[in-house]
């Protein structure tokens, strides 16, 4: 027994001969916000469904909240798991409030708590409408409210913010942060890494069923060694001899008197210092660290190249 909320050891899942997830090890700890990133078909949903016991592993062992979730008796564990499926759908004939009551009863939680959940996701006004009349944003809010029933210790959110407007997205992340502070493990999958920048403690990158990276954003940056780009603008009236930039070694013209170089992170300062000692002083210097998308692309490309 460990304190881990979820532990996956050597998980492989095949559909027929097609592997959806191959030999994945993953440990999720309480209070952690984990971003599971990868493009469509990378195995994100498969991993989440495996953690829920909706599908069985081909090989490997999964423990969720201290028990093997695939066992029949383990269904009670799911009372402590909140799940928001990708493109959540509800039985159409019920109202939002009725649905929350239904799910709360299944989880054996107090139905009276649902009102505060509805308030939390801002769905009080629409609570007595049938879910078939809900917009995508409202369905997603109800989905989140449903996942939050009974203060779950593990939240599994499958692309929760796809198709949401920025304000709602913020609300979502605020609620998720509060849950993590409360000690819950929050795993959320996304195919856009950029929006998760300050919203996750750890990032797990999946590519074609393989876990290709797992760590904090800083870890990932260090691992990826994506180049930082320095761009120097010498102004239009500058008469910059090419020799000033050491015969432009590594520098590449990207505009009139604008030059750019890609360098490794440790070399950055040396280059900037050199720029400042040139006879022709640059009018402007721009330092662009690798974006999350660059890092993401790095991990995906590396696998594609192998």
């Amino acid at each position, binding site marked *: 027994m460990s304190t881990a909320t979820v532990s996956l050891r050597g998980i492989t899942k095949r559909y027929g001969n097609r592997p959806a997830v191959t030999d994945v090890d993953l440990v999720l700890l309480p209070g952690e916000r984990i971003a599971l990133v990868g493009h469509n078909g990378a195995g994100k949903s498969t991993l989440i*469904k495996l953690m*829920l016991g*909706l*599908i*069985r592993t081909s090989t490997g062992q999964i423990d969720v909240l201290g028990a093997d979730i695939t066992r*029949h008796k383990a*269904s*009670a*564990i*799911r*009372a402590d*798991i909140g*799940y928001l*499926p990708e*493109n*959540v*759908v*509800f*039985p159409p*004939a*019920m109202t939002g409030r*009725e649905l929350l009551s*239904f*799910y709360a*009863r*299944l*989880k*054996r939680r107090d139905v009276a708590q649902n009102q505060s959940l509805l308030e939390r996701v801002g769905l009080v006004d629409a609570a007595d409408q049938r879910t078939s009349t809900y917009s995508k944003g409202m369905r997603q809010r109800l989905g989140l409210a*449903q996942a939050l029933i009974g203060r779950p210790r593990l939240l599994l959110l499958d692309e929760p913010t796809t198709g949401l407007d920025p304000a709602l997205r913020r609300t979502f992340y605020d609620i998720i942060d509060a849950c993590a502070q409360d000690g819950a493990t929050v795993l959320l999958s996304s195919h856009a890494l950029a929006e998760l920048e300050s919203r996750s403690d750890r990032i797990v990158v999946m590519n074609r069923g393989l876990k290709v990276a797992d760590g904090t954003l800083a870890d990932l940056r260090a691992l990826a060694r994506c180049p930082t780009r320095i761009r120097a603008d010498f102004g239009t009236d500058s008469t910059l001899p090419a020799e000033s930039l050491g015969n432009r070694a590594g520098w590449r013209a990207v505009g009139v008197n604008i030059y750019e170089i890609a360098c490794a992170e440790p070399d950055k300062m040396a280059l900037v210092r050199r720029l400042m000692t040139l006879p022709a002083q640059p009018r402007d210097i721009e330092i662009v660290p690798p974006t999350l998308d660059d890092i993401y692309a790095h991990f995906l490309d590396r696998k594609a190249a192998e």
Partner: protein
Amino acid sequence: MSAAIVIAGREIRDSLRNRRVLAATGLMAALALTLTLLGSAPTGTVGVSKLSVTIVSLASLTIFLVPLIALLIAHDAISGEMERGTMALLLAHPVRRIDVIGGKFAGHALVLAIAAIVGYGTAALALAVLGDEVEIGAWAAFATMVGTSILLGLVFIALGYLVSASVRDSRTAAAAAIGLWLFFVLIYDMALLGVLVADQGRTLTPAALNALLLANPSDVFRLINLTSGPDVSLYAGMAGVAHRSGASASILISVLVGWIAIPLLLASLVFMRREL
């Protein structure tokens, strides 16, 4: 167990709300009333109780209608939810798959029972209001008919689940359900009749015939109801079979129960193996 009750409650509410209950009950009541009122005309005063005639008419109606209603309710119980995506969310809750099947079955069973009791009850009420003298035995036969109609419905709900749990999508489930209905309600008896005629009693023993009748739940229903009293069996033209069939009513009812339990069990097993 309580998860199953919660699911059953949702199914009942759903069925009430989408007017499935209303439609099924209305259909059965309308047809039962028609048969009762029209069906008692040709008997005149030949001494056959009107209720006996009604039982024969309603039992024949049941054989066609009840399996159809049951399959309509049941065929997309599982495949439909899988297709729409509501099943994954349901199973992510502390619910065992057997709770899902059990809960849905309880809910759908109640819907069907309401339809049968109210529908056929209307016919019985009409007869009572019309003021016929009916002997106690005929009322018992009527009650048996209603009860076994429900059992027959449960058989086809269970078969519907088996189909629904086995196929990929609702359209396939609907096609398979229609196939099941055609097979058990129409084709089986015609084929059996064909075999009997062709065989001329050379190889097919009465015991074999009995076994073949028990292998079709709608024939079991027929055996129970169309042989339930001397009047009824005479009127149904089942007197010959009734004498030959060695099976008592209790055995026949256990066979029907078996026809419910086994498909339900198989449906649960198939569903437990399904991946979402």
